[in-house]
């Protein structure tokens, strides 16, 4: 059979090899940008292939490919994840052409980037637990190396160290959970188990290990402590990828495994809701604190903001899992999409600031919005979108999460209102760290350097521009994104038996 299901995967895999070779050739013949352009072409190719096949899947026919004993299946959830990953990957690759131009190790960077996205796509395609774990690691390992890419930076090494250790622990715990499931069911394939794992001591333990294990990667509080360091120390393109899609993919992995459990007899969704509330609150408070520091780091602020936004995602999906509230699923998945774009944009802008001005501190960017007009405007857009302000995309996705959470009113009464109130108050607190950054961007520049700096070069601006357009368009015409999500939500509802 034709490997259409895994075509994007294969394209990126081949691309990673080719990019490495081109990278070495770059060294040999002292050329520039060979690896980066190669990677970009492969990304675009994979994206186009994915979109093309997406239509087949959306019309109701998932594509499969059998390798050995396992099937790789492109269903609507897989399409959802890989489209976001590929769009973000392409844009980050485009951005990195300029941003990483002066770094040594070009051949590693693009190879690792391609492999990371391959892993993410593979997570979507997996139909059994081992392959899922395999692709999860395929995503994780390049990300470790990418966080520590600039080896001479002490912060990066420290961050990478924390990230690897915590992530490895998480992976082991998750793997243990998988093995417990295997112990009880004797199989690893989803289709035989989905929605069936019910009340038994082993399954409960498995649930604990899976949530904690994958939760480390999904940056759920209190497992999130690696994130602020890793996301702020990584090169900005990688920060965008990490915050944008890697933690989303971590949660996606968790979701795939959680779907195996019977949500009616196990409090899977409810647990997610509780964790989500912790995550939101801690993320927002910590981000709020960042601005009280003497040297407030913009990337660290955005990293904590990612933790808070993950809270919204987990809340939306948790509500859907627990009570079958469709709007919750829609909100959670749509927020994965919009967060990828808006947080990606925010980090790319922060990177542009670091690239042009050489500083990452909020105090140093006073008045930057007037010199770096495009970057300033794009950063403003992303921050307003993150705060959930219409007509930007963050509004609709956050709104869907809130409405999903309050629809639990009919099932759990006042608790539903309390959940929604906590989420909304968190949205209010988040204004407290988004708006001051905008204010600082557009105040009067005191620093001569700030006045003299200009917007970065075309490739970086194009990357930011595409994301900015997506952020605006998804806000005014959310249908564009919701069209991708609808089939995925349909399948989630069916699995849950709602």
């Amino acid at each position, binding site marked *: 059979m034709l490997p259409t299901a895994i075509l994007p995967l294969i394209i990126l895999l081949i691309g990673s090899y080719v990019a490495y070779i081109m990278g070495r050739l770059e060294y040999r013949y002292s050329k520039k940008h060979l690896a980066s352009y190669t990677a970009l072409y492969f990304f675009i190719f994979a994206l186009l292939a994915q979109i093309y096949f997406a239509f087949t899947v959306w019309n109701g026919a998932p594509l499969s490919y059998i390798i050995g004993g396992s099937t790789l299946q492109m269903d609507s959830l897989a399409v959802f994840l890989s489209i976001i990953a590929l769009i973000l990957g392409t844009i980050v690759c485009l951005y990195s052409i300029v941003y990483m131009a002066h770094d040594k190790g070009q051949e590693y960077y693009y190879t690792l980037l391609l492999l990371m996205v391959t892993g993410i796509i593979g997570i979507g395609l997996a139909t059994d637990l081992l392959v899922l774990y395999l692709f999860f690691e395929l995503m994780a390992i390049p990300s470790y190396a990418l966080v520590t890419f600039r080896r001479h930076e002490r912060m990066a090494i420290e961050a990478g160290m924390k990230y690897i250790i*915590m992530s490895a622990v998480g992976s082991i715990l998750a793997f243990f959970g998988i093995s417990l499931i295997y112990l009880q069911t004797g199989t690893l394939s989803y289709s035989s188990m989905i929605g069936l794992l019910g009340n038994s001591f082993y399954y409960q333990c498995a649930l604990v290990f899976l949530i904690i294990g994958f939760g480390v990667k999904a940056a759920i509080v209190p497992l999130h402590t690696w994130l602020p360091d890793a996301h702020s120390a990584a090169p900005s393109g990688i920060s965008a990828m990490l915050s944008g899609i890697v933690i989303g993919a971590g949660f996606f992995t968790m979701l795939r495994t959680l779907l195996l459990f019977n949500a009616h007899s196990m409090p899977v969704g409810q647990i997610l809701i509780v964790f989500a509330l912790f995550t939101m609150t*801690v993320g927002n*408070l910590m981000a*709020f604190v960042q601005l009280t520091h003497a040297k407030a780091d913009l990337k660290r602020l955005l990293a904590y903001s990612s933790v808070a936004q993950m809270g919204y995602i987990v809340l939306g999906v948790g509500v859907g899992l627990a009570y079958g509230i469709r709007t919750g699923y829609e909100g959670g998945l749509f927020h994965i999409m919009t967060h990828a774009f808006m947080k990606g944009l925010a980090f790319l802008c922060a990177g542009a600031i670091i690239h042009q001005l050489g500083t990452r501190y909020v105090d140093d960017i006073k008045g930057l919005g007037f010199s770096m007009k495009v970057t300033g405007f794009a950063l403003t857009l992303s921050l307003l979108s993150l705060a959930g302000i219409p007509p930007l995309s963050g509004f609709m996705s956050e709104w869907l999460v*809130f409405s999903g959470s309050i629809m639990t009113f009919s099932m759990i009464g006042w608790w539903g*209102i309390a959940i929604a109130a906590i989420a909304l108050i968190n949205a209010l607190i988040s204004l407290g760290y988004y708006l001051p950054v905008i204010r600082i961007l*557009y105040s009067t520049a005191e620093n001569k350097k700030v006045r003299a700096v200009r917007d970065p070069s075309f490739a970086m601006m194009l990357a930011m521009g595409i994301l900015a357009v997506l952020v605006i368009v998804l806000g005014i015409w959310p*249908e564009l994104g919701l069209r991708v999500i609808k089939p995925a939500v349909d399948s989630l509802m069916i699995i849950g038996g709602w």
Partner: protein
Amino acid sequence: MILDNEILIWLALLFPFLGTGLVPLVARAGGKARTYFAVIMGFLTAAVVLLLLPEIWFGASEGLTIQPLAWAPSIGLTFSVYIDPLAVLMAVIAGGIGSLVLLYSVKYMEKDTGLTRYYALVLLFIGAMIGLVFVNNLIVLYFFWEIVGLCSYALIGFYTTDPKAARAGIKAFVTTRVGDIAFLIGIFVLAAGAMTSLGLGFWDALNIQTLLQNVSSIPLETLAIAGFCFMGGAIGKSAQVPLHVWLPDAMEAPTTISALIHAATMVNAGVYLMARFLPLFASVPYWTQVLMWIGGITAFLAATMALVEPDLKRVLAYSTVSQLGYMMFGLGLGVTGFTAATFHLMSHAIFKALLFLGAGAVIHAVATRNMYQMGGLKKEMKITYVTMLIGGLSLAGLIPLSGFWSKDMILATAWETGNYFPLALMVITAILTAAYTIRMLNLVFWGEKRQQTHAHEAPWQMSVPLIILAIGTLVSWLAIGYLTRAYAHFEGALTFVVHPFSVVVFLMETFTTWWIVCLSLGAFLLGLGLFYLRKRYAQNMIGKQTILVAQKGYWFDSFYLAIIAGLRAFSIRFRKTHTGDLNYNMIGVIIGMVILLVLFFLLGGAY
């Protein structure tokens, strides 16, 4: 009409939004082109909305509903548009005053930079305001409600060189957001209630007309929660106590913005919300009483604060808060107050915009906002003086200006519904209103000149809107006949009865309750008297204390700052839990497992 109504509605939304999008492009052709383009788009919007007026107010049609628009069919989000007299009233105010403000801005904002952003945001604001009142779906209403808030924030902080302005913008945004949280919870609760009791899908349950028609089927508990939550949203947006603190600070905005957003339109959105949903919540016990008291107390407190304020724009800001309190008070009298409150909304929008634009002309001429540095301007700025005098007397409630008629109607309705004590409070507020208005006029225009420089009269782009608005405040009360007839015609939609009457009948009815007229005019005279006796009052011990309290704003601001400081302090201490030490991080993982096990135990499914 010339154009089909459906087209008019779409154009009313299209012109401003198209304008917003195109202003940056047109700006490439130069500043003048951009300014003219913006003004033209504003006037086109006003024209389109005015064309809707005859059909809805004078015509015989039922509420206009047009084809539902499928905004996001994948989740089932479709919404329709529903136009009734109230919606058209608000839209005409937004479009009309918007266009006058745009014309005024041509000269007023001439010397400022960043005008592309300014005009784009003003047009976005006008479009969002019209969208807010036209749509028939609560979530789309909220969508426009937030956009209006966004424009307000961005325009308050327009002068980027002024740190006060930026902070004021953030303050406005955050304060209104508090109200918006309540509003959002209210929307969801209402939708949830409607879903279960009416068996509707989620998005259908957000349809405003559906909710209004089926009020009796929705459980009272749901209505109660939703009603008070909606009130929270209105309190935030319309700057009522206790969320009034943002409006005086919002005066850092260019005066044109203060006129448009913070006097004539955005702050009226809260009143619109209350008016629109009055039929839904009037049956909730205590809802109307709470609204009435909030309105009354706000009106009174804001009037006291206006009396001691030295900044011209802040006086007008407090005055706006106070008059909005009158409108909320009117609505809080029950469905009978609907006409009076919306009538006052209309007349207030006109004279307050007039006062703000006039203040703008004054500030433009003397380069200060402190009234104690002005004086004697009546000779040098004749047109501004006359128009502001008319506006001020209308605010103070002098017959036969529109402010008198609308305020009197509210007082009369209070009498008729038997709310005598609140009525007394409003009369006292009317006295204070007259007092602070005369104080303002005195400090700015009468007496000796305290300024050395010569103040020039405003150019025509600024004077013409002033004159138009002054004429408006002289005659707008005549529209009462049309307004009530329009409401009466829509009684099916409003679900309560409004008696239509002509202007003559209105005059007769007003003077039938002649004691209210006496109270109104008496309040005006007493206000004058209070003003003339001010020196004696200020020397008095009690006088000094009350002035101090009013100047401190009754410590609302201090209270809120304390809350924020508390949150900050808590966060800084909380931050210590994030040690950055990998060992502690791993303990975090263990803690996570423990929490999970506890949750398992609590939520069931435990072994």
